């Protein structure tokens, strides 16, 4: 019966630590990632998650013609480089920040509106025996009208 007393306590701890990690992520997104958008207007959407070394995330979004976009993908300092790749609907790679020394940002515009996929991967430090590091990864989009 003791298990029934322990479970709610552990559940509360898990829930609290999960919420703390999320709140930490929001602060990170605001303080570190948002300024990376520079002169672009942040669209107001929030995309962030705690990821572990080697983990991947995907994002699907429609981008419109006649708009200039800037994407900023930022990871906490304790994480290795964040790799991101942009693909079209036919899985063609349109951009990889690996070719740009793992740049955090990418500016682009489209001749015709498209739904694109962003594949985000936290690289690995490759240190066997060490506990994999984890941290917040935030994805933000800024836009401006292409004049």
């Amino acid at each position, binding site marked *: 019966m003791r*298990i029934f007393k322990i*479970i709610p306590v*552990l*559940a509360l701890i*898990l*829930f609290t630590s*999960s*919420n703390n990690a*999320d*709140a930490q992520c*929001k602060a990170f*997104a*605001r303080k570190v990632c948002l300024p990376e958008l520079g002169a672009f*207007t*942040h*669209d*107001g*959407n*929030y*995309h*962030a*998650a705690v*990821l572990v070394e080697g*983990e*991947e*995330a*995907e*994002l*699907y*979004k*429609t981008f*419109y013609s*006649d*708009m*200039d976009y800037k994407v900023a993908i930022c990871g906490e300092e304790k994480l290795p480089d964040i790799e991101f790749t942009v*693909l*079209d*609907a*036919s*899985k*063609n790679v*349109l*951009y990889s920040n690996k070719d740009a020394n793992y740049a955090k940002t*990418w*500016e*682009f*515009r*489209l*001749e*015709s*509106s*498209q*739904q694109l*996929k962003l*594949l985000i991967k936290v690289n690995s430090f490759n240190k066997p025996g060490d506990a994999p590091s984890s941290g917040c990864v935030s*994805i933000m*989009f800024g*836009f401006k*009208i292409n004049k």
Partner: protein
Amino acid sequence: MVLLFAGLLTGCKSGGKKAVNEEVTMAFPKDTAAFENIKKAEKIFNALPSPLESAMLIKSTGAKFDKTLLNPITNANSYVTNKSMALNLGIYTCDLSFASLYEQTQLIIDYMNAAKKMADGLGILKAIDQPTIDKLEENINNSQVIMDIVSETFMNSNSYLEENGQPAMATIVLLGGWFEGLYISTQLIDMKDFNGNKLVGRIIDQKLSIDILLNLLESSKGDTSVDELIIQVKRLNLIFDKISISTSKVRPEYDTKSNTTVLKSQVKTNMTPEVFKELASTVAEIRSTFIK
């Protein structure tokens, strides 16, 4: 059991979908699952255009501002359920964005207050506080500051709901904003000016986001409020299915002058006036259930 519970918690946060293999065609795929995944990603984000982006898309076509299309702020008192407040937080934020881009100073303050009322009702602490309203009033003639405030308040609301175990409500807010943008766009079309109208092109573009919206809703399936919305959005999807979009291969080219990558491609679209009328009337009908 603890592990099971932990799994449930992270599962709820991810709001993800399982990767499904599907054949990809050169034309735009019907489902994002058409992106074949070799490895299942730990986290999947489905990003709808934000209310600010939707309003910007409308303005970029040269469309005129029409105050009568906005949801009257007097309706704000009648929203008492979480679903109606979440929907109308998105709707009022889109109206606010629309008013901001067209520099409608009094409407900006009115609609910020209406959005605040919805956020307060949902228990979203400090999303839109008094200092934010004061800052808005002080900078009422500075459109960039206004846009930054709208963007920040929307992010506050959205992140709060995500962080506090209410992803379904966060999705409903996004849906409300997207729907309002679509409603305003369809209402602004004059049938005499249908062919070659840039705004019609923007409406067609929304077909590209409807599967993202459905995936977002599906990740909260089982929530009664969301289940009702899935039925309404699927109805809309049937009309979007009558619109065709065909895109050529995308070629990235780097423009050294602007330090920007240009994704070059050609697109062919087709939406008949009849399909547009059906779309516009269905959007108006569904939107009327959101704002009543």
